[in-house]
């Protein structure tokens, strides 16, 4: 589904990603862990098509296509979803209008008619239930005044609405209380599908108890320094990143 080869990325002249290699097959869940500032969000943003980055080298193949050639909106329409670490607020734009526009853009790309009002409301009700999203929330402006946890739930709600092929969840677990963590994880798991893949960026092994990864990668100073099965997360939690620094560098 996704192949990243020797990806090197800089921002404002500073190299952040220093040669990332990653292979993600359909149906797999990959967790990316790593200390603050190691480049996890940068990787997510670059995959989603944020423009301010400079691609120094490497390539990214998504479903047989050169992903880096596509606009951010086309990547989204082709099924790449980024759950933001810090979702932005858009004052005055009701969440319901926003997600409706989004859903219909995706449909238009696939050559489908827009959903009727009835179909849309039904879908929305269903997906809101899935992540236990307060039903009032969708009437408010996009993320405006949402609590930290509500913002994260709202990201998962949008993911559920859009059913992406490749979901990149950037610290969706931080800021969630224990119940919310379980609900959000259940939401993610409910969307699990042999054709869909997920990249979970997290600092906490706890999340991986719920969303069980096939692989765990450690990103350190812009490089993946270690990849292993889910047991790696436990080991990291026990020993910290220092262990890895000494171990692999």
């Amino acid at each position: 589904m996704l192949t990243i080869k020797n990806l090197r990325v800089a921002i404002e002249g500073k190299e952040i990603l220093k040669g990332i290699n990653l292979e993600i097959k359909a149906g797999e869940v990959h967790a990316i862990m790593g200390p603050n500032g190691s480049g996890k969000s940068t990787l997510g943003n670059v995959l989603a098509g944020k423009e301010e980055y400079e691609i120094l080298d490497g390539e990214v193949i998504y479903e047989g296509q050169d992903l880096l050639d596509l606009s951010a909106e086309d990547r989204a329409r082709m099924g790449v979803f980024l759950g933001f670490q810090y979702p932005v607020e858009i004052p005055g734009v009701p969440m319901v209008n926003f997600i409706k526009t989004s859903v219909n853009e995706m449909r238009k790309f696939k050559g489908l008619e827009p959903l009727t009002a009835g179909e849309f409301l039904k879908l929305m009700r269903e997906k809101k239930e899935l992540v236990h999203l307060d039903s009032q929330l969708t009437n408010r402006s996009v993320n405006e005044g949402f609590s930290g946890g509500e913002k994260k739930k709202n990201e998962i709600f949008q993911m559920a609405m859009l059913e992406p092929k490749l979901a990149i969840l950037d610290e969706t677990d931080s800021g969630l209380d224990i119940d919310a963590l379980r609900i959000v994880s259940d939401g993610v798991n409910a969307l699990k599908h042999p054709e869909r893949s997920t990249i979970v960026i997290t600092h906490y092994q706890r999340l991986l108890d719920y969303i069980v990864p096939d692989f765990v990668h450690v990103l350190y100073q812009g490089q993946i320094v270690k990849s292993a099965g889910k047991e790696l997360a436990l080991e990291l939690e026990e020993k910290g990143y220092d262990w890895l620094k000494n171990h692999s560098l």
Partner: protein
Amino acid sequence: MEEQDKILHEVTSQEYKFGFVSDFESESIPKGLNEDVIRVISAKKNEPEFMLQFRLDAYRKWLEMPMPDWAYLKIPPIDFQDIIYYSAPKTKPQYESLDEVDPDLIETFNKLGIPLEEQKVLAGVAVDAVIDSVSVKTTFKETLAEKGIIFCSFSEAVQEHPDLIKKYLGMAVPTSDNFFAALNSAVFSDGSFCYIPKGVRCPMELSTYFRINAAGTGQFERTLIVAEDESYVSYLEGCTAPMRDENQLHAAVVEIIALDRAEVKYSTVQNWYPGNKEGKGGVYNFVTKRGICRGVSSKISWTQVETGSAITWKYPSCILMGDNSVGEFNSVAVTNNHQQADTGTKMVHIGKNTKSTIISKGISAGVSNNAYRGLVKVLPGAVNSRNFSQCDSLLLGSTCGAHTFPYIEVGNKSSVVEHEATTSKIGEDQIFYCNQRGISTEDAIGMIVNGYAKEVLNKLPMEFAVEAQKLLAISLEGSVG
């Protein structure tokens, strides 16, 4: 920063979408202005003596006045002798049905997306269409007449209700008020008159669509709205003009008089031709709009969405004379490319316990300049008065300008005046968030801008709000390809 530049380029490379010229014939008098021209205009319109005197008086005052230069605008010199001050469609049509109307005109309205017929049926809006300077069509007059409401062209009102015109014309905007108001008073060719009798709630939104058409024709509209005690009316004004190479001057005057407990809502969507991307052409819009809350507990609210014109100079104002009277000003002003706008309001508190609210949302893109200029003046006798002002500016890109000039004068201790102002940029992060959900940059900007302006758009009557939303998106839309 690359993204900024791209967005900037996209939003600034937008061409005006409503540009076209229809070619039904007009009859004009020669260019230039002097007392004889004014006499000709007055004679052609068969006006009573008091009207001629009103015009001549205004003209003589105008001659003494300099053009105002205090606005944050670069106004090219205007040759007032190079303007045609009167033009009228050749035959004054009096149509029974739309079938009899010049098909070109209908076509024009269709291009504007304002099918008269549909509007009549669907929205129940009485339409008084002003093409050039003479009213061509008025509908729903009979329904209104049953309630004693007068809604007609200004010329007609001069003929049929001279007493009302004589009493109220110039009450809110005297001939000496300012350079452009004086000019308008001297040469105005037509406009609308609306009179709501005591105790009557006007059952429909009254609407006038203005257009500029004949080449090189100055446009001087005059609107007068009088609301008697306990009456209510909502008045809509909307316009879009055909594409032109040369600049066109537009100097309208709107006067509103609200008596005891009367309420007048005046809403405008303004989309005159703004000039091309290089700043060539476009309408100069120098408008004087003022309402007087003469009566106790009366209320006047101005709501405007300004997207057009090369230059906008416009300050819809309220004189709050009656005790407990209320004034409101809600504005969205968009400038793109080389457009310039200096717009705002004056709220003059004279009566006791008077209240005013100002909400101004400026949006600038391209290399445009957008200024808010507001005066809140509370006279010593206006005890316990209140004003709240909120002036927000939104910038698209880094080559445009937003400026705020609030003037506040409070003449007593019991009144409270509050002013809040913010300036923000459309964030790359907001646009990326939309992109990541499959929404194009162009649509994202439309969405964000409409969200930002929502507070004001919500004040518009429903069918107008929809039109205004489209207009906002269109006027900032780029050529994303």
